């Protein structure tokens, strides 16, 4: 019930923010767009009678994908497309529960010691060129991804945890893991390519990339999923079409056109004109839509909690004299006026967070108490930590060092500048000087990866299993992982280890709950808030649900979307 309570809280905040005129509260008062109307998520009649089986849906992409090769893919856009062309064998459902893909996998078995997993593929699976999809394709793909000669960036992470992958027969694959771990099975979701297409090119080009042969293959990706590839015009659109020989569940939507529209304002105008069926909204766009009649005529809004968090990271690796002291970090958090930041940036659409898990998450620990905004308390805490205000200039000093640090911001970050401005103001009032430096994204990453910063504003998306915090919070992840701030707590290290290799749900839950408490107490970050998925959908679209990761990357996702037969095209012009 706690989760529902939280959702209600968010929705209340949301409705308060967008005013009483919204149709979500009273249907007789347009003018703006509704929020999460029942029509948006309505399931189609079981006999499929009211469904427009020839519908085309226009989706938005904010950038041109680098590649449509399943194994080389690395960006979110590429994942949106890949999950329709070549879906993985294991998936997350909309509640972020692990499951096998029901269209592809007949059975899944783990050995008693959890070191091997056996997947039996559905027998009638085929590639889009009508060749059979077999266990050999899975094995070939696993080898290709781990092949040292293939310059893969993202897909190797996780796949490298599978020690062995063997075809027992054409429809059965056995995976072996190095150690029994609760998260091993998540790694079975790697991309699969057609052996009969890749192997012939491999002899001449072992990189699977730098030859005209593979250029052609990757520009015309062939999969085995419910949609097949039609065309890709760079920076303009990507078109997919339902593949009617798919042996699994038939999707309702016939054609999917991904429009590549990098500018959020132009995309909004396309939506109003009926040229887009969905697009992510910025918080200001979302809030502004409540009074926008043109928006209200064309589209509705969707709001869903998102499993991620925005934070201020404090570098505590000893390279600066400030943030090694937990009292200083607590004082920083007390100075961070999260409610005001949420109001300014997020129009009160989201709530402050309690550390590393979303309240809806199974590992969330309810006993964590938030550090509240209180600058007086912060000043007192800094006094105790030895940072005292100088009578001469009003700034705080300790051992002759002035408390003055620089906050790194990534360019284009929605929250960064406002977070910094609000914090800077409050810090100045208690005698701490904060400067800001805004860097272009790749430069920003290089700086924080190199631990070359005092403080930074960032955000982490959470993988469904809390084990994903392993490479953020463990001491040994300072050099090669994501522990950029140099956090170290031996008890946290130990708990991650214990939880990873346990299969007892309650035990893992206790471990991860304790981790959340410990990390929150240590305040390596100032945890600000969980963001929300803010989306616009055209009024004709049905069957849409958002997961805690947004619109894609879960099952069934887009496969549930449908357009009623009497809705007409959004594209009459």
């Amino acid at each position, binding site marked *: 019930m706690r989760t529902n309570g939280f959702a209600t809280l968010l929705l209340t905040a949301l409705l308060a923010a967008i005013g009483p005129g919204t149709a979500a509260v009273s249907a007789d008062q347009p003018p703006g767009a509704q929020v999460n109307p029942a029509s948006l998520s309505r399931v189609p009649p079981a006999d499929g009678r009211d469904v427009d089986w020839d519908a085309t849906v226009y989706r938005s992409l904010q950038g041109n994908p680098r590649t449509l090769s399943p194994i080389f893919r690395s*960006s979110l856009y590429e994942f949106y497309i890949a999950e329709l062309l070549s879906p993985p064998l294991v998936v997350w459902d909309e509640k972020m529960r692990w499951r096998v893909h029901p269209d592809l996998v007949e059975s899944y078995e783990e050995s008693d010691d959890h070191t091997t997993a056996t997947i039996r593929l559905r027998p009638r699976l085929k590639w889009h060129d009508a060749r059979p999809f077999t266990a050999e394709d899975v094995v070939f793909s696993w080898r290709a991804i781990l092949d040292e000669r293939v310059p893969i960036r993202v897909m190797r992470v996780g796949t490298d945890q599978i020690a062995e992958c063997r075809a027992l027969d054409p429809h059965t694959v056995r995976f072996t893991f190095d150690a029994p771990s609760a998260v091993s099975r998540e790694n079975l979701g790697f991309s699969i390519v057609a052996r009969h297409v890749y192997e012939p090119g491999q002899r001449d080009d072992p990189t699977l990339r730098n030859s005209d042969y593979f*250029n052609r293959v990757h520009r015309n990706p062939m999969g085995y999923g419910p949609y097949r590839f039609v065309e890709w015009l760079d920076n303009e659109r990507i078109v997919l079409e339902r593949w009617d020989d798919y042996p699994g569940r038939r999707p309702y939507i016939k054609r999917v056109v991904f*429009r590549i529209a990098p500018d959020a304002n132009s995309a909004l105008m396309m939506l109003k004109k009926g040229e887009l069926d969905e697009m992510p909204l910025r918080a200001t766009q979302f809030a502004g839509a409540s009074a926008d009649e043109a928006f209200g005529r064309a589209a509705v809004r969707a709001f869903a909690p998102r499993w991620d968090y925005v934070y201020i990271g404090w570098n505590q690796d000893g390279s600066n004299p400030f943030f090694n002291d937990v009292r200083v970090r607590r004082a920083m958090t007390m100075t961070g006026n999260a409610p005001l930041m949420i109001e300014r940036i997020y129009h009160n659409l989201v709530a402050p967070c309690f550390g590393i898990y979303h309240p809806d998450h199974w590992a969330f620990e309810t006993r964590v108490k938030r550090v509240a905004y209180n600058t007086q308390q912060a000043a007192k805490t800094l006094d105790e930590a030895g940072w005292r205000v100088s009578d001469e200039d009003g700034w705080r000093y300790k051992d002759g060092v002035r408390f003055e640090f620089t906050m790194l911001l990534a360019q284009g970050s929605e929250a960064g500048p406002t977070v910094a401005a609000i914090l800077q103001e409050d810090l100045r009032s208690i005698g701490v000087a904060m400067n800001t430096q805004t860097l272009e994204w790749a430069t920003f990453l290089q700086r924080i990866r190199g631990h070359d910063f005092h403080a930074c504003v960032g955000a982490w998306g959470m993988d469904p299993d809390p084990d994903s915090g392993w490479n953020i919070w463990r001491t040994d992840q300072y050099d090669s992982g994501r522990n950029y701030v140099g956090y170290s707590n031996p008890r946290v290290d130990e708990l991650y280890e214990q939880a990873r290799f346990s299969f007892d749900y309650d035990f893992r839950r206790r471990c991860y709950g304790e981790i959340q408490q410990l990390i929150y107490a240590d305040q390596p970050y100032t945890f600000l808030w969980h963001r929300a998925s803010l989306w616009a959908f055209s009024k004709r679209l049905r069957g849409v649900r958002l997961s805690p990761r947004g619109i894609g990357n879960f099952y069934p996702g887009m496969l549930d979307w449908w357009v009623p037969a009497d809705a007409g095209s959004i594209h009459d012009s």
Partner: protein
Amino acid sequence: MFSYAVKRILWVVPTFLGITIATFALMHLTPGDPSLSADGLGQGVLSASEHQRLSEYFGWDRPLGIQYVDWLWAALRFDFGRSFADGQPVIAKIGRALPATLLLAVVALVASLALSIPVGILSARRRNGLFDSATGVLLYGLYSVPSYVMAVLLILVIGLWWDALPFRGMTSDGFADMSPGQKVMDVLRHVILIAVCLAYRPLAFQARFIRANLLEVTDAGYMRTALAKGLSPGRALVRHGFRNTWIPLITLIALTLPALLSGAVILEVIFSWPGIGRLLFDSIMRRDYPTVMGLTVLSAVLVLLATLLADLAYARIDPRVTYD
């Protein structure tokens, strides 16, 4: 003339080297590398050893000088390498983006000249008359409106409210199934709004430029002679006066053209136009060095070529200019 051309072409070599060395150094000295770029998922997840493996693979851990010489040697044989982002040949990537940019540049340039020349002549002919003052105010006004503001305005009014023209991309969805005639019309409809945004500021500038140059020559002796011979003022202005404004105008065009061809990043983003500007922008953000270098060479060659052609054209247009 010939020896001048040869000399000019020889000068192109050091200029070209300078441009490419500067770009190459700038690109590589910018912090970050291709494994850390903006749209990569799990940016931080890449372990140090994985990072090392990729660095070796792409060769961006070698000394800069060696990387440059390798690049130059290949580039001289028209091999610009393969993109770090997707392994496609750089030439192929540029080739896919160039038609959109070329079309846009030509339409914008032709449109601005087709309007600015008559407007310039007319306003010079009736200097400080109603037409001159009105276009003057209008053109200065236009010139001071940033093109991205104009873009949003045009999209809102013409694209959305009137629903008269498309404002997204270069083609409609059913493009592949259209007849050739329909295809041409479809592309032209798509190019209009973005071309207007790209053209109106050069138009304003060129029109005032032509007017000013014409005014300078109206008092010249040969104009008086022309009028004395009985030519109408309009005819004298066009036949004798305008010819003398060609040289500065050609210089102006020669310098505008490469800028047009290197793409208009902001407009291309607003109009989802699949041109060179977006390719360049994406490539810089992704630290896709080979593609950035390929595009640099393209625009360097265009600038050098355009100024060279302009120089040579002077001699054709104006018999008084000789290079011997």
